[in-house]
């Protein structure tokens, strides 16, 4: 039963992923698919700007840096400027297309930013 659930989850995940990929690859879709609501990030009362603190409540920066340790030409999540604590929003945007913040200075860093 447990295995079945995992398989189902994977299948659903693939479907969900491809469906959203066709329409939009913005991160708000990704977050919505995981069950997040606007208020999860923006607060319940007056809509608030989202500090990095919100991101790190779910995303562990140290683990993320380990995961991308072998990314070439360099690990975007552990660098000489901020170590593992680069403000996520420098590259990853949620309601608009993300950007490669590194490339403006380091031209060979041709990352594709989700």
């Amino acid at each position, binding site marked *: 039963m447990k295995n079945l659930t995992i398989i189902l989850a994977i299948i659903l995940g693939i479907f969900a992923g491809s469906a959203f990929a066709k329409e939009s690859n913005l991160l708000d879709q990704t977050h919505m698919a995981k069950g997040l609501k606007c208020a999860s990030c923006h607060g319940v009362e007056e809509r608030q700007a989202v*500090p*990095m*603190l919100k991101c*790190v409540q779910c995303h562990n920066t140290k683990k993320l840096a380990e995961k991308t340790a072998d990314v070439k*030409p*360099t690990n975007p999540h552990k660098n*000489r*400027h*901020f*170590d*593992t*604590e680069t403000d996520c929003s*420098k590259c990853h945007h949620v309601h608009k297309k993300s950007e490669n913040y590194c490339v*403006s*200075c*380091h*031209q*060979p*860093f041709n990352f594709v930013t989700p």
Partner: protein
Amino acid sequence: MSKEHSQKPKEIDQYTASVLQNGISRRSFLTRAAVGSGGLAFASFGIASASAAPLQVGTEYGEIGGATLNFLPKPKPIADKDIATTQTFDVVVVGAGASGVPAALSARESGATVACLQKQAIPVSQGNTGSGIDLKNSDKSAIEALVSRLMADNAHRSHPGLLKQWAYNSGEAVTWVIDRVKQGGGQIVDQGTKVQHGIRGIADTDDRLSFITSFCGPKPYTTGDAIRALAKTAEKAGVKFFFNTPAQQLIQDESGKVIGVIAQTRDGKYHKYMAKKGVILSSGDYQNNQAMCDFFIPELKNFERKQMDRTGDGFAMAYWAGGVIEPVGHTKMLHDFDAGPASMCDMPFLAVNRKGERFVNEKVEMSLMNNYLKDEQNAGHYSQVFDSDYMTQAKDWPGHLYSPEELKIYMPEAPGEKKGVFPSLINTHSANTLEELAVKLECDPKTFVASINRYNELCKKGKDEDFGKPKSKMAPVLKPPFYGIHRRMRISTICSGILVNDNHQVLDADGKEIPGLFIVGNLGAGFYGGVDYPLTVFGLSLGRCYTFGYLAGKYVAKL
């Protein structure tokens, strides 16, 4: 600090008097606004006083001549109930960089309890070289000749007392930094005097001028890594670091004495760090604050920034505490030691701008080249161009030549491991035709070739009728393979700041010390003043940061 150069009270030196008169403080804003608005305005608004009245409650930003300076936000009141924690130390340092970490450690070694607040997750610094004068092996006349030369480099706008303080204390301070970085496991060596290519001819030939030149490297290792090692030493010694904790505002008592700092952690909570002896601000420059740049140094608009998060936080804090900002026309630092060898940066090879045009007498040093490249298209880019005879043609030029084989570590297209450089920033090229080289240097080939033909013509003639470069520096570009170093002048730092005395204590608009408030590093005023940071002494900037951090830490700890 150095008794020899200390000021007597009430006797204000020329530099300080000039900044008090022309600088920007809360009081000068009010006075000038009042004078500027004239009698009519007084009549219609009923504001009849030009005296130094305190700012009205509710004023949110600094003002000058009616202009609102939104880069100087007034501290908002933070109620005690919103303060999550309060801790008390002797000394609180704001900013863990090349001056802040030495200040924190030196205060700690002098017996103080010390907190060091840092905006980022780690200590941050840049560069490789930090210099001091080896007093034992230098003659006083030579040291004074160097100070005089630095005054000239700085367009005679700096405080001679601060330059002398660096000159006479830097050997000790840099030696101390070398030792303490090593204790923290850092990579640092003393390169001595031989690397100081820029000091030739300053002292009389029978005078000795020697340096302690600390070098943290080779790249990609930098002073950033070394300062992180120094922070380890400091932490071991008992300095308490608080990362991801940007300072928000200073706390002053009723008399105006600075008694602490309020900082905010990533969870949005405020914390008080009380300072019994003093607060040392070492939070650096403001290159990432567009409004500040547009006001103090508008010519930076088209240049890329090398740093991030340099929003000039310390400026607003010191301003609202009563400090005086150096007059408009701040000093900038733009160079590129990464595209090609640093030791070839001031060699007067043919230089072309981004279009491929010759644009300057190439004897202009790299540190000043940005002044010819301020427009949107050039945006600080130029290329040094030479041919395969450069090893003979330039052998007596200022600096040190790299052979064609050695140059390969700066060539992205050349195979092999790129050791001792930042592989993502190297930008040196070679090609068998000029057209091909133009493409690699991102110039228009037609314009590029025409510029080189014209230059070769002038070389043949032996007269630079276009820019007046001396014949001895007119090396033609004839023999393939051709070489080009594409340098990008980006902003390393802005090095003008808040007026301090020679104890690094902040002065108010009356020239009086603000009790409890000190500034070191690039946030401090008086050390430069020219259009650009001079590259006469390699590592002057970091040398000054180490030295003033070291001295101020000691001084404040002993209060």
